[in-house]
């Protein structure tokens, strides 16, 4: 079931005018910022389907920028997000895509800061609810309802066991887990949703594990 809480239906409290195109867009921006671990210097935002056709009218653009600046759905600063982005020197550009994606409300955000890069594909499924469907082109399914660890690792035996052992030793319960890869033997992505937030020390331990390339922590939104 995609919707779990009554507040997915009666809520969110938000700046209008559209829950999917404004509030959902802000949440996609906010989640991308959280995954990136801070504010990017530059973002390319690719819009698809209904997002592409109606983003100007729905304030999807300002909401995405607002989210990237760290504003939640009910934050009035979304309205002036363009000016605020300029003030905090975050550059952005919107690219309208003709191609069809699996969901009509899709945005792909490519975040850059120095040598750090991250590509997040988000969909807005209605009523302000969103899902992240891919990261750096690895298909995943992340609701943002729970804290999660995204572990990029070598696609070889033993890595998954090492990571889950670290979590187990620290008495951290995994609620949902998913492993995706692009090609055999290449880099793979482990998506681990957890019941509770995780200590920085544990994340460091995971980072240091053999076979692990990069770890991104996603806090509960």
């Amino acid at each position, binding site marked *: *079931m*995609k*919707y*779990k*809480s*009554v*507040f*997915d*239906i*009666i*809520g*969110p*409290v*938000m*700046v*209008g*005018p*559209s*829950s*999917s*195109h*404004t*509030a959902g867009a802000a949440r996609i921006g906010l989640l991308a910022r959280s995954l990136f671990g801070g504010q990017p210097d530059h973002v390319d935002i690719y819009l698809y*389907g*209904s997002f592409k*056709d*109606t*983003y*100007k*009218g*729905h*304030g999807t653009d300002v909401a995405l920028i607002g989210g990237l600046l760290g504003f939640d759905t*009910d934050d*009035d600063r979304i*309205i002036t997000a363009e000016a605020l982005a300029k003030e905090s020197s975050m550059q952005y550009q919107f690219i309208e895509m003709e191609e069809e994606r699996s*969901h*009509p*409300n899709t945005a792909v955000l490519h975040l850059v800061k120095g040598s750090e890069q991250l590509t997040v594909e988000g969909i*807005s*499924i*209605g*009523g*302000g*609810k969103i899902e992240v469907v891919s990261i750096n082109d690895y298909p995943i399914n992340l609701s943002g309802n729970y804290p999660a660890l995204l572990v990029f690792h070598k696609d070889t035996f033993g890595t998954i066991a090492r990571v889950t052992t670290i979590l187990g030793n620290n008495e951290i319960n995994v609620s949902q887990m998913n492993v995706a890869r692009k090609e055999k033997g290449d880099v793979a992505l482990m998506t681990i949703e957890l019941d509770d937030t995780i200590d920085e020390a544990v994340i460091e331990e995971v980072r240091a594990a053999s076979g692990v390339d990069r770890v991104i922590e996603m806090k509960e939104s």
Partner: protein
Amino acid sequence: MFKSIQELIDQAASENKAISDVMMEQEMAVTGRSYLDIYKDMERNLEVMESAVEEGIGGVESTTGLTGMDAVKMKKYIDSGKGLSGELTLYAIAHAVSTNEVNAAMGKICATPTAGSAGVVPGVLFAMREKHDISREEMVRFLFTSGAFGFVVANNASISGAAGGCQAEVGSASAMAAAALVEMAGGTPEMSAHGFAIALKNMLGLVCDPVAGLVEVPCVKRNAAGASNALTAADMALAGIESRIPADEVVEAMYKIGLTMPSALRETGRGGLAGTPTGERIKAELFGEQ
């Protein structure tokens, strides 16, 4: 977790509980949060709805100028005493319009279940407060009951105009409000389900065709229609009228209609009213020729 409306009303009936209680208990079980925390969050949502209703009645205008100030007209009309409909319906219209005018003006609202349809549930709820002696707690309960029905629609069909058309937004909202009205007026859970089914049936096939892609035309007025339809359906259910098609099958029908709806009529701002000469002209004036 209840997965269908049948399961929801069975659970309420077998445990002799109101639907709002079933929703509250499920929320506690799923989130692990306390009754009081959940109740307070819902009360906060109610406060946001109340502020939006008041703000719109005071008069707001969107930046495009396409919508706004109609709630003020409705309020004056109600005060004149010349209204054709009863005052409950007139207030439901006024408050629904008011909320959606605030939404269009990028004001603060509570999505129920979406922003485009945010006027329907508060519209009828605050109309009930105008005309009946209802407590704050009953108002909060109303939101839990609406939420329970919306929860089933969102999981089994869709509440997104881009996926399912306006029937999924204003249609869902209207059906949620009808079910909650029935409970508030003392109807049984089964009667709530009939009210829900009747309201949603009347909204099937409704397309999402916003002019220039803006949540303004025809969204604001459709919220008024959703609110008055909720009252119609609730009254029918309370009179003992039953829906021949069970609520869950109506939800399924709505979902399937959404799947076959062309994308021009699913929040792309291309077909329907958006594609009329006036709709196209407004779009060109606002965003330039494309």
